[in-house]
């Protein structure tokens, strides 16, 4: 896949960036354990958690995405704790009888989509209402393209992070690039699976 595909008149409307992730930890529980689990997680992370499904909060340990009523995904960046440290520290509060802590660092890749035509590109792939009122910045939506699941995090008006399954990541990147082609697209960095 060429890294640089401008439009006929040289425009670039979309910047794509694919990367493996420093750490991803899924913290979850069962319906009856929700209350204790939230309390434990709040204690582990030190402050208020995302309230509703789709909300996100930034913590020292990483970005916390509430992807289900009893499921949160903690995504860490380089410089933040290593995944095994993160799992261990979360486990101190979220004990096995309270909930589950699962390393998914290898199970997700991130595709960054940024630019004037980011929304125009993504609306080809996902049946989501991208208008600001329906999908404001810092919200995450669970969606799918061709049945391939994706947690799409809006990081700004014209920027998104798509968390996709690792084994589909290369295919998804090609799909994103193809969808963005008419707007002009640059692939900034492709990290192998």
């Amino acid at each position, binding site marked *: 896949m060429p890294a640089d595909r401008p439009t006929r008149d040289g425009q670039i409307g979309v910047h794509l960036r694919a990367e493996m992730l420093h750490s991803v930890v899924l913290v979850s*529980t069962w319906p009856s354990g929700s209350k204790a689990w939230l309390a434990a997680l709040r204690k582990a992370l030190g402050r208020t958690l995302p309230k509703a499904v789709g909300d996100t909060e930034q913590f020292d340990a990483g970005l916390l995405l509430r992807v289900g009523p009893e499921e949160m995904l903690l995504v860490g960046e380089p410089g933040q704790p290593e995944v095994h440290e993160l799992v261990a520290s979360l486990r101190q509060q979220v004990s096995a009888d309270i909930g589950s802590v699962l390393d998914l660092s290898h199970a997700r890749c991130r595709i960054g989509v940024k630019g004037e035509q980011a929304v125009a590109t993504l*609306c080809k792939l996902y049946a989501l209402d991208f*208008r600001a009122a329906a999908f404001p910045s810092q919200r995450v939506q669970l969606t799918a393209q061709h049945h391939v699941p994706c947690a799409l995090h809006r990081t700004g008006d014209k920027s998104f992070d798509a968390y996709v399954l690792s084994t589909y990541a290369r295919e998804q990147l090609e799909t994103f690039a193809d969808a963005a082609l008419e707007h002009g697209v640059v692939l900034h960095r492709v990290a192998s699976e």
Partner: protein
Amino acid sequence: MLFDGKPLHGFQGDTVASALLARGERVVARSFKYHRPRGILSAGVEEPNALLTLGQGATQEPNLQATMLELQPELEARTQNAWPSVRFDLLSVNSLFSPLLSAGFYYKTFMGPTRRSWMFYEHFIRRAAGLGVASIEPDPSRYDWQHDFVDVLVVGSGPAGLSAALAAARCGAEVMLVEQDFEAGGSLLAQPSDGAQGAWLATMLGELSGSPKVRLLTRATAFGLYDGNTVGVLQRAAPGLADAEHGVPRQRLRVVRAAAVLLACGTIERPLVFAGNDRPGVMLSSAVASYVNRFAVLAGRRAVFATSNDASYGDAIALASAGAEVLLADARADARPELLAAAQRAGVEVRLAATVSQTRGWQSISSCQLVPFDLASGCVTGPGNWQAVDLLAMSGGWTPTVHLSSHRGVKPIYRSDIACFVPGAMERNQFCAGAMMGTQTLGEAIADGWRQGLLAAAASGKASSNVNADQAGGDCPAPPEQEFGSTAFAALPPAGPRFRRGAGKAFVDFQNDVTTDDVDLAHREGYESVEHLKRYTTLGMGTDQGKTSNLSGLAQMAERRGVEIPDVGSTTFRPPYTPVTIGALAGRNFGAHLQPVRRTSMHDWHLANGGQMMEAGLWMRPLWYDSHGADLANAYRAEMDHVREQVGIADVSTLGKIDVQGPDAAEFLNRVYVNGYAKLAVGKARYGFMLREDGMVLDDGTTSRIGEFEYFMTTTTAQAARVMSHLEFLLQVVWPDLRVTVASVSDQWAAMSVAGPRSRELLQAAFPELDFSNEAIPHMGLAHGTLDGELGGVRIRVIRLTFSGELAYEVYAGTHHGQKIWDHLFAVGKAFDLQPYGLEALGSLRIEKGHVVGSEMDGRTTLEDMGQGRMASQIKPFWGDALRRREELMREDRATLVGLEALDPAEAPNNGAILFFAEDEIKGHGRGHITSTTYSKSMGKAIGLGLLQGGLAHVGKEVVAASPVHGRQYRLRVVSPLFLDAEGERYRG
């Protein structure tokens, strides 16, 4: 552009139709069945005649309406359904046989002498009759599709649509306004652009295009209205913009989800039905005006307008003002004085109580007969006279475009006062406005559009339900003066045999060559309901879907039956409103993007090392490696040998992997699997089956206990998603009280199976951090650890289990580390002659061990069928246990798993071959079938697994495997499915 290979010139804004008319082209098509010469009838989407083929070769696209095609330099169009040309078409010989080619002719004539005869005739019939020809080459054009969300979607940019869009936008609603034409304006485009209506249009478009709330899409046809206010919109690229190389599509399918949908689809003018009404030069009245006012084209210089409504006066005056000699025959006995005065001023001669009865002409009209006419009785009241003409403009009233409203199953309602169907009560948040609802004047249409626009905005949540002018930012812009009025919905003149007898064919449906005789015949033969009429005569079928013909057909049938039109009913309109290309429906989802491709960590390694990849579900997996043989048969046998004799490695990352955690995880697994898991020790793995609720086998796999409350489940590749979904269902619906979580970790772990007598040695050398001794990792044992050295920090998980029957281990590492571990194993494995093996060898090795896979667990088999009934626990309940005991599933003569060996070692039967006893007649479904076969070097013959009635009770019996598809039969013997190492000495190591 090129038209039939010759240059066709025009102006920007022309359609191909307007350019052809300007050049004086009359015959532009041949009719479907009789190959009669046909000209341009209309100026819009309703055009039934002027269908052209665009492009050549791979880009060829047939049946495009000249009236909708924008003239552009690079266009290459040609006529179709004629040979050698539309002017001189030898196939017009069909007309000579027209008395034979009545409705139902094919059904009655070509049904014998055998049932297969139609297949023979069809080839010739399709060549002689039909439309254009589609290309069978791959289309190189780019197509795309996308999702849109809006508050209010307005369909149609005529007067009502424009005012509706403005009203909704002023209320704060985000509006998408779609227009199928390449210019917005609808019927206003057919009016003089320098008149009051043109000025009003310019004002409206100015405000709408300046509003940040409005998206105006031209060249965008709303072709279907679906559930939940979802509308399919096909948008065509503007001339010169499509660029496949740069990803710019020629067509884009938009899936629009709107909080409120407002239809302002307008009306379509109806032709009159009289003898010779299909001659080139016979056009719709409004089309004539449209060509004059919008395209500055005179469709004729000596014209007769035959009408029964006011609107044609304006059309006739427009043509007369442009220099034509015009006579207007109004079927009504009276007309408004101001109309008559305006006509007189423009030099239009008006004859009241008169209409046209027939036409003459060779390839186009040369004269028409006008007759005195009584509209009330539908009778000709005196002798007619012939008028020399080169244009006959007709108007039989107007038909509301109710197609989209009908897509939701809303039956149109007949309004006898205006002799047409209008939309019935729409679903919630759906609105209709303007002429399609029967408004009679421009002012009414605009006011109705405004009112419905406000309601749509309120329905979308952007305005209160009783919105006022202040909230809407003022009133609707005042409608322009309408000089000629528009009481356009006139009563239909009866379709008339009284005009036609002995004078030639009178067409009801131009595109399908359906005449009044055909409708009469359908009536005589009992096809009286509208749906029967349609199917018997093909009335209303084809690319135009009867836009100009439906009501005329209904009117005639109603008259023959002596009932009112609504008693005949109306046909059911279904999407699409206009044809949609397959390319647009597919969008970008073809070729490399047809479906997602799932790759393992080692995908590139497989490609670089001769892996011959195959699709396994969405995964790409190496079937075999060409380094082991020139073809599949040789390679997989070599790979099998290597596993049996040395050590091999297979990429099994595709296995489904599920993390199960929680205090009740053991209990959960105990209920899910047929065998016991409650007492599985930490560090141990267990093989088990799980059933569906109906007692059939769902899947098999191994689950390991990682910790007290943590398990690692593997599933087959094919059933990974199904099992995950099954587990979630059980937890959420059946046993919500269990404190368990499940999560797919299929993407987290790369997995490789290291199998063969030397596998332990290899792994011990590769991972000295772990102890691979029999004591440390026994069969079905588990170990994990963190590696040192170059692989420092990489955590691996090892489970000792076998699929091949050899001493074998599954090695798991994080997906991003998979390639590193694979490379490391090969580096260390050089000393052990480590070789990769593919899916074919993997499958063959398991057949030798009698292990079942999806071929055997095909959704119709039980645990007992698999010979695994003893695995089911007798002391604990499990999912599917109750229904697996159904009488039918416990029958002793069910087909159960057996081994099969070829009696002729050289012959390998096919999977799926049907099993018979040697004494059976080879017929029907037999006694079972072969599920898997391979050649076994160990056995020196072809072997297989199969499902045979009575199963192992027939061990030693000879059976015949018949493969009707291949026309072959094989002699086999029934044996145990465990071909190799029955004691398990090899894998116990």
